[in-house]
């Protein structure tokens, strides 16, 4: 498949600050790094179609997700359901009335072989034994695996993750980070990963963008942006990621 590029250039007036974000992402993991309340989640919401910017443009190659009337041509705001953007939420947001398998099969409703495809996804996320459990019967790490499998079910080209593993302990985080790197490489996904944790940024980020007060301050490879960072955790992360 031809590698795609996601281009985001948006403005939005929020309660406490103005969001003004310009990023371009290819088949890689871009980490949006910054303190909470910096506008990271709002950026993801705009890409997914859950928030409407005041102005600007969001495109995935030829597909226009959003274009305000100020730009060339007519205003476009593609509804979230037509964007095919996978979204993994911080609080998992699994459907509590559906089993793990049913959660993953949710987006495959009315499609052929939904059951088999959902089972295959669960297997990829090492969840086969837990297919018939309900979210409240799963640990945090297991719930987040189900959430990732659910987001991948509709075969998105773009995957957004909002502080996905922040509630999990470091051993589980490490394994999920490995899974994420593998999934990204296999499907050539465009991944945007929001975190306020520098260790996360160093472990999974091919590139990182530092967000502060609604704007992107710097973009680049994690170690170029924070060369002085020498905490043991980061050193270890650097060592394992080569």
């Amino acid at each position, binding site marked *: 498949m031809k590698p795609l590029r996601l281009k985001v250039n948006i403005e939005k007036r929020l309660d406490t600050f103005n969001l003004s974000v310009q990023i371009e992402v290819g088949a890689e993991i871009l980490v949006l790094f910054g303190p909470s309340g910096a506008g990271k989640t709002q950026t993801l919401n705009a890409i*997914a*179609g*859950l928030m409407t910017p005041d102005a600007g443009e969001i495109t995935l190659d030829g597909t226009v997700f959003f274009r305000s009337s100020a730009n060339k041509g007519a205003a476009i705001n593609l*509804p*979230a*359901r*037509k*964007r*095919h*953007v*996978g*979204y993994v*939420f911080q*609080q998992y*947001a699994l*459907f*509590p*009335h559906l089993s793990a398998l049913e959660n993953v099969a*949710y*987006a495959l*409703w009315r499609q052929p072989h939904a059951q088999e495809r959902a089972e295959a996804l669960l297997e990829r996320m090492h969840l086969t034994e837990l297919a018939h459990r*309900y979210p409240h019967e799963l640990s945090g790490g297991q719930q987040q695996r189900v959430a990732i499998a*659910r*987001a991948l*079910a*509709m075969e998105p080209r773009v995957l957004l993750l909002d502080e996905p593993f922040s509630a999990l302990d470091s051993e589980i985080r490490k394994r999920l980070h490995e899974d994420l790197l593998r999934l990204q490489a296999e499907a050539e996904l465009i991944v945007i990963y929001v975190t306020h944790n520098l260790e996360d940024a160093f472990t999974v980020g091919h590139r990182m963008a530092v967000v502060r007060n609604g704007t992107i301050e710097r973009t680049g490879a994690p170690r170029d942006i924070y060369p002085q960072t020498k905490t043991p955790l980061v050193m270890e992360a650097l060592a394992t990621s080569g």
Partner: protein
Amino acid sequence: MNWSALMLSLQVTLVATSILFVVGLVLGVFLARFRVPGQIIIEVLIFLPLVLPPSVIGYFLLLALGRGSPIVEWFHVNLLFSWYAAAIASAVVGLPLMFQSARTAIASVDHMLENAARTLGSSELEILWRVTLPLARRGVIAGLILGGARALGEFGATLMVAGNIPGQTQTLPLAIYDAVQARRYEEAQMMVVVITAVAFIGLWCVRQLERPLHKRKTALR
């Protein structure tokens, strides 16, 4: 035991509950999820039957269903003094209970889940059907039982719009009143026991539905 009154009461309650289900759910969804102009006025109107005297509700229903009203003048349908009028009166007094419970349940469904469904390709109607209503269903069922129990006990407005015709519009509460007036206490007693038992079981079910899931031995899903 006045069997014809019992059967009629069941019939009236069943129809009233069906009306409650449709009208209460539509109103609950709209007022929980959308900003509707005149929202407070609509809500006050829905809740009015809770505090108005039954005779006043009956009076308004006479205006709404009687001669000169649109349904008589335009559609030539006369419902007054039939069991249909009793069903409508019962639905009107049951609606506030159904509406309140359904709206609260729908409003308390986590917005994040609906957003998740949006990103997974669901239309708004599909989200309502596959996410919101399944998660709100305990509140909806509780509201339906409460509204249905209230409908079963309707007396005053029914008397005014449907009359008290034995075998035609005489429901259990009316039959009890008649039996007591005629000093047929034994007959009244049987009917009192039946109504009280039904109301008790109904409210017990509602309490069960309101209990948090994790406190039950077997999780109902």
